[in-house]
């Protein structure tokens, strides 16, 4: 009888441990099953990707439809090439859609926003979004602002 209660205790302990892992996977990290299978890749070249990170979300109309999977430098055009994994469900993006790097809140994280174009042809697996808007770099903006004030003063 003593061993039986011990075995039940150990069984419950092991179950609790596995349940904890399951909770961490599903509830805390938001892991969804069969995630990578139903995505397709799109590329976009930005003049400046400052602040964008891998795993940043890709949104359209405020709804998350994918994530950034890689960022590297395109050696030939000196631009930042962003690789995005988009959900297969969203396979009707026109070829002239616009990708822009946006900021959540004033100092929040950077993400990619896609706005729809009007072309009949659709972007396919491995397609490239041509129309892009770079990240807003606060230092550049301040620099321009200062330059403007100096110019005004000198007139």
């Amino acid at each position, binding site marked *: 009888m003593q061993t039986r209660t011990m075995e039940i205790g150990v069984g419950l302990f092991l179950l609790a441990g596995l349940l904890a892992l399951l909770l961490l996977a599903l509830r805390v990290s938001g892991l969804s099953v069969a995630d990578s299978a139903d995505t397709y890749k799109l590329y976009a070249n930005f003049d400046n990707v400052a602040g964008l990170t891998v*795993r940043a979300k890709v949104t359209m109309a405020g709804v998350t439809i994918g994530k950034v999977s890689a960022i590297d430098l395109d050696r030939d055009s000196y631009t930042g090439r962003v690789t995005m994994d988009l959900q297969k469900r969203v396979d009707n993006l026109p070829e002239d859609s616009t990708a822009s790097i946006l900021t959540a809140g004033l100092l929040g994280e950077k993400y990619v926003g896609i706005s729809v174009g009007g072309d009949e042809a659709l972007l396919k697996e491995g397609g490239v979004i041509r129309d892009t808007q770079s990240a807003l770099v606060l230092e550049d903006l301040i620099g321009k602002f200062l330059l403007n004030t100096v110019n005004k003063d000198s007139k």
Partner: protein
Amino acid sequence: MRQISMLDRIALFGRVGIAVLEALGRSTLFLLHVLLGRNGVGNGFQLLIKQLYSVGVLSLAIIVVSGLFIGMVLALQGFNILVDYGSEQAVGQMVALTLLRELGPVVTGLLFAGRAGSALTAEIGNMKSTEQLSSLEMIGVDPLKYIIAPRLWAGFISMPLLAMIFSVVGIWGGAMVAVDWLGVYEGSFWGNMQNSVNFQDDVLNGVIKSIVFAFVITWIAVFQGYDCEPTSEGIGRATTKTVVYASLAVLGLDFILTALMFGDF
């Protein structure tokens, strides 16, 4: 005269170095013997269950209680700082990342060294000093297989599970404080957490950390017990050594593992 004392000092230094190296070598050989010699134990599974009970299940209470309080304190402190910047929704991701990456494995490791590691050392040391280990050898049972191996495996298995339970309870405690008490919106609490926590980078790396800690702590604990002086004073010293060495090893290894996992080399 002075020359000799200088030499003596160097000799003392050398003696300490040799002792440390000897202990390292002995403990490695000991570990190999325990892990590789796996035949001849008839009811090994029963022995393992018994040790899982005393190492794992009995440590559950302290893990759950401290996890709950650490999660609650993290949420409270984080909220007080984040509310100044108007981003108190980020408290969920802060609590979750802190617990999963660092505090879960490390605090569980420290508590495990104090609760289970010291108990293992004292138990094995007591067996040695009352000559139970040599009696086992006399009747032809290998004490490494019968006494040490099940305790080692029980430690390996239960500590990662305890670390995961610690994280879950901590996050639950944090949610309780942040959402129910301080009034952070529940949707953004969990949503921010799920957006920023990655299963592979955060959860699995935390589990890997806890597996490494489990290995080191249990190894130190059973070796100190097996290697101690068979006197009551020796058992006391060995138990102290277990807690001190295991805690230092956990903290030191944590830095190395964090540098490897999150350091971007």
